[in-house]
């Protein structure tokens, strides 16, 4: 699957999704509606415990709905096998140690594509490009547990990238990354989106969110409370709703508002507005 054709695009539709965890009866999702079109870049934000991870785990069948439904390209995800979903939706875990299991970086990155039936040059190219994107080329023989925590996280991302799924879901990809690691994650989001694939990321880093995503979905207590462009979600009108979820807009948005320049969620947007105001 070099690049991505219409055939491999996926539309995700979440309708009235409810999830109650059996242990403790916690209602982690309380009726979520969300439609994500092919090729969108969507950031999911909200406090710890607001339901973000529970939501994305329904997209690839790791969790099944208590009520409501998830459809992938019009098919009910509940009627699809985990294997069918895995070919469409690649999901990385927040904690790479819950994902990584192989004895070498190479085996770890090849596991996903091998399971999807890739072999030969197709497998080799999937592996090479995933390792290059994450800066792990040259570490093929390394045991994943000899990598530092931030590079293990990048390995977890590489092993999902190598599956070349139409949808990539990243759970807190920038957590624990230094400046170079965050830059790599940014570049991965750009490159995947440029191929027309969908990227959904959970993040607490509002600068990363505003800079790399077209759309921001804010969750609170198992519900979507805001859903719009980063200019909308980080604009003044949405601040009370953001505040109710203990989130703050990025600094550029606050400064733009202070200077009466409208909603400027990124440094670049603020600088452009400052330029035209001069």
């Amino acid at each position: 699957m070099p690049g991505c054709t219409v055939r491999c695009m996926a539309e995700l539709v979440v309708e009235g999704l409810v999830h109650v965890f059996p242990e403790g009866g916690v209602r982690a999702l309380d009726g979520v509606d969300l439609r994500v079109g092919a090729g969108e870049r969507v950031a999911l934000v909200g406090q710890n415990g607001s339901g973000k991870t529970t939501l994305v785990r329904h997209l690839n069948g790791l969790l099944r709905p208590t009520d409501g439904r998830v459809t992938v390209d019009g098919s009910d995800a509940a009627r699809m096998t985990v294997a069918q979903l895995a070919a469409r939706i690649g999901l990385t875990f927040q904690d790479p140690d819950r994902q990584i299991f192989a004895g070498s970086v190479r085996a770890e990155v090849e596991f996903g594509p091998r399971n999807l039936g890739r072999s030969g040059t197709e497998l080799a190219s999937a592996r090479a490009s995933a390792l290059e994107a994450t800066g792990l080329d040259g570490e093929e023989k390394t045991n994943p547990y000899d990598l530092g925590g931030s590079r293990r996280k990048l390995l977890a991302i590489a092993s999902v990238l190598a599956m070349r799924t139409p949808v990539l879901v990243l759970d807190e990809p920038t957590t624990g990354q230094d400046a170079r690691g965050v830059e790599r994650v940014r570049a991965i989001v750009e490159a995947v989106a440029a191929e027309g694939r969908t990227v959904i990321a959970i993040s607490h880093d509002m600068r990363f969110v505003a800079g790399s995503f077209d759309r921001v979905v804010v969750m609170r207590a198992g519900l979507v409370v805001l859903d719009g462009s980063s200019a909308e979600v980080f604009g003044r009108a949405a601040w009370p709703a953001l505040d109710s979820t203990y989130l703050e807009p990025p600094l550029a948005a606050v400064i733009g508002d202070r200077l009466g320049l409208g909603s400027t969620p990124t440094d670049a947007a603020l600088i452009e507005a400052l330029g035209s105001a001069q």
Partner: protein
Amino acid sequence: MTLTLAGVGYRYAGARRPSLLDVSIDLHDGIVVGLAGASESGKTTMCLVLSGLAPRTIGGQIKGHVTLNGADVDGWPMHQLSQRIGIGFQNPTTQLSQVAESVFEEVAFGPMNVALPRDEVVARTWAALVALGIDGLAERDPRRLSGGQQQLVAIAGLLALRPDHLVLDEPTAQLDPAGTRMVGDAIRRLASEGASILVAEQKTDLLADVAAEVIVLDGGRVVMQGSAAEVLGDPRLADVGVAPPAAVSLARAAAEAGVGDARLHGALHG
């Protein structure tokens, strides 16, 4: 009380190269020192050496001197050192005992382990909970708290040992913005009560907020050291893989675009 590293180097057991080279710092009472650096630059190693866990518990080879008020701690056993220097890890779940049924029991775990009298344990536990503003959580199950709350419980457990020095290794890495603010407030409060705190962080915005001084590591060596404003505003920070605080990078990008005027400056510092 001053905790000092003088020309300290450290090599992990079985490692070919040292992870820390010729590091010298002083931690005085009531000061918050920020520790920045790219991944694998030596931040965690420095935290382990400062707390005494390296080499006492994890082995390896140390060079140079670690001193408390001028006395070399070389021969001190861990239980004695841990009452003077507390260390907190990135992930609060590694720190919590996992056996305590309540937050109160969890925080009392340290003082009970060093065999303090019962009344003293109770008094210290309450004092630590109050100092961090989590006395309302005393009866809760620590495993059923938010990440931010768990991190505060872990820090309270350190405080109950009444250490003179606290070493925190990326305490907000797993936390959401609200949890990060809670930990930042706690650090400021503790420093105002006289503890010295070294906090390793990727979030330079947090360091700009709480630290008086900042040290930057690269390849196990100290490459920058000075007041927080000076170090965090230094353009060389990016060269060693550290993202500057949001205000610094915004001001710099605006200046480069020729729009960094007085109005922007006023809004940034207003």
